[in-house]
């Protein structure tokens, strides 16, 4: 059995934003499922932890929410990205890529490469 990784603090919000960016308006369960699928079941996610993150993003104005019917006609709260959320996602993405690139470069360097 594969070792599952916990979700690092802060990255969950980024995942939520990207999910909503790709799939459009989605309810909490949908977001949770999607994150699990994308991560190839490598992440262990207590689905409930999603909700405080959603609230936080909403309070920050990055996402908005409304009640709506789910696929099987249940009442569910649907979250969608706001223009501010798009901007936030772009900025976070850039940050993340930069960080990843820097770390990657550190791992590439060998002792003999150094002048």
């Amino acid at each position, binding site marked *: 059995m594969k070792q599952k990784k916990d979700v690092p603090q802060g990255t969950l919000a980024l995942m939520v934003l990207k999910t909503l960016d790709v799939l459009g308006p989605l309810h909490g*369960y949908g977001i949770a499922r999607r994150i699990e699928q994308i991560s190839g079941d490598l992440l262990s996610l207590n689905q409930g932890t999603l909700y*405080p993150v959603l609230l936080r993003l909403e*309070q920050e104005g990055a996402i908005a929410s409304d009640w709506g019917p789910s696929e099987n006609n249940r009442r569910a709260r649907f979250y969608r990205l706001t223009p501010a959320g798009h901007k936030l996602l772009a900025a976070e993405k850039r940050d993340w890529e930069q960080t990843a690139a820097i770390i990657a470069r550190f791992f590439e360097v060998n002792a003999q490469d150094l002048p």
Partner: protein
Amino acid sequence: MRALNRLFARLLNFAARRRDDERLREEIESHIAIQTEENIRTGMTPEEARRHARLKFGAIETVRENYHAEKGLPFLENLLLDIRYALRVLRKSPAFTVVALVTLMLGIGANVVVFGVLNAVILHPLNVAEPNNLYQIFHKEWMGGGPSYPAFEDYRQRNTTFTGMAAIYGLSSVGLQWNNAVREVSGYDVTGNYFDLLGVEPEVGRFFHASDEHGPGSAPYVVLSDALWRREFHADPSMIGKTVNLSTNPFTIIGVAPREFHGTEQFFWPDYFVPMANEEQVEGWDFLHTRLYTPVSVIGRLKPGVTVQQATENLNAIARELAREYPATDKDQSARLIRPGLEGDNEKIIREFLVSVMVLALLVLAAACANLASLFAARAADRSRELSLRVALGSSRQRLLRQLLTEALMVSLIGGAAGVMCAGLLLNVLSRWQPFGSGSAQLVITVDAHVYLVGLLLSLASGIIFGIIPARHAWQSSPLQMMKTGPVNSTHLRRFAVRDLLLGAQIAICTLLVTASLVAVRGMVHALHAPLGIEPKGAMLAQVNLGMVGINGDDALAKQKQMIDAAENIPGVQAAGIVNFAPLSGSGMSGIPVYRPGTVDQSLSNQVLATRVYPVSPDYLKAAGTRLLTGRNLTWHDDAHSPRVAIVNATFARKMFGQASAIGQRFLLWNDLYEVVGVAEDGKYVDLTESPTSAVYTSTAQIRQSSTVLVVRSSLSSREIAAALQRMLSETVPTAPITIRTWEDALSNVLFPARTATAALGVLGLLAAMLAVTGIFGMAAYSVSRRMKELGIRVALGARKTQVMRAAVGRPMVLLGAGSVLGLLAGIFASRLLGQIVYQANPRDPIVVGGAVLTMALLGIVASAIPARRALTVDPSKLLREE
């Protein structure tokens, strides 16, 4: 921006108390329902599907907690909860709460009052531009601390370290005549650059400048204070340009100083400012050309970047030059820079006094904190069951700690607020109080932000101090132990020790303060019984300045004789005499050089002594109650046509003539040869702490003075004699301003330091005594109530009364003894501190030590009487049945 959005949303939620979890609940439900359906589709049984869905979701309660924490402001919410709970707990035990609040109110109030005065007197900057580089130039060798006017000019021109220097000369009791009425005013003669140097702007009109002065008598201008302008001229702007008479000479009003400006002295509010060039017109003579007389105070502004050290060296170099150039008058002088504001060298004394009282006030607060800490600790011990229950139910210890601290802080903040409010009221009263009688001397205390800030800080600090001790107790409590054994357990005695220590410290501090206040009272008694050389009781002073209404020379003498005769004719009057200024009134001729007969070179280095001179009428000594030791009294025949005669005091006779009899000896004073005809007893002339001072009484018929103080000794009540004198004087000198007071009232300014010290230390001592009583009472009552059952059993088993008593109040008594001894020792070691505060203070004085011991013993007995009685009257049968 995002963070701001979020904070706003949270604040909104917090404010609206939006605690509805409806939305979250519904979302969770729908989430789990969808997951369950999904699970069923993959082939699970409904129950299994539901269980898995829940497992996958995680702990719902934790999610809800986190969700809630994100939603509002948990810290604030908890704080509000804590505060509400604390208020409820405090309301539940009103007696405890009231005692705690009152204790704090007194402790913090006392500190705020002392700090308010300290702030106003020392910390508060003067109302001038850039007060930081303004200094007073102080020469300790010269009377009054200033140089002669020519020397001032030399310093001003030769120095390289000051941007400017101004001289100030204070002149009180000047007649200001306007519309045929004469008011008595006090103010300043200042050099023309005074206002420019201080950087103040006029409220109305203009100020005079250095360019207005063109030699003596060239600038007959007067600037009024705002207070005088409002009081006498109804704030009428058209007064600018009008002419008033000062000492019967015309001066043009050119401007009004701003309301809050009163020069550079904290205690003095001058009524007017006149250019020093016109000094002669105000006083009748001037000092602008003599180096023998050193009357002015000098303030100066340092050049930017110049240090005090450099300026002092610069001034002292000039002083050495002057000593070479004017060896007769300017020898051996040194200059020093001090902060202006507190009457020259008094600054050190006043500062030390206030700082010492501040320290004592902080000690009172420390004692109050110790008291409250033991009260709170006792309560925490009683509540240990509740606290341990809460720990057992999963409350975090931090949470409990916060709860207990919140309670303490609530008490300290409410008590502190009450204390600051009372202190504010008291400071306002103090500010309006004029300790030196009516006139220009007063201290205005403004309660500014600093005072409130100090009150807040003191409240918070004391709250934390007395809150930490019981909180520490809760921190260490083990729930298991507590629940098992209940409140009284084996750790009881050890825990008691902390409170023992607190009470001991409290009593030690209180003893110290009681000792201090006893010392102050003793000092005051000493001061009141110091031989003054006069007998103020039964004497009345009527001050009449004839010069103000233009009566001088022989006219003045005739008027004075007329006044004395009229006063002697009032039935009940035993003696009446006049003097130019009464001793201990703050005025008078002083530092007058005396030479041996035949001295030609009358330079200061040849003088035998410097003396005070009092021109008096024949019956003055009798009216003042000054005893004539040998020789004869002055008579009206000692007038301008007969040889000059004088009565000298004992100190003068000893210094001048040694063991030889003084009668018939001669000395030179103001170039006149005087013959000693009598010797009078010594007295105090400036203040009560002065060392023996020389004084000469001359005949007022030989040195005529227009300034007149009529001294009347009578057997009448002060009101009767005052009315009679008022009637008589308004007939004799209808236009002159008259002030009539008992001599005892007039002495109030001399006794002011001793009185203030006694009042301050007395109040602190009283507060300390109260704290000692509440402390001992609290401790004894608590220990009796905790041990009621034990005492009951002892009584039932036949314990004697003394044994019960010892068990009940033994410990507080031991603490009282130990604490008192410590406090007394501290008081004795603090004698230096106390010596600075009160005149002739000696904490080793057996009466003080005995008094302190007796006071503490009495306080102990009073405080433990009620608990002890309760212990003695314990009814074992009733008590044992109750449990």
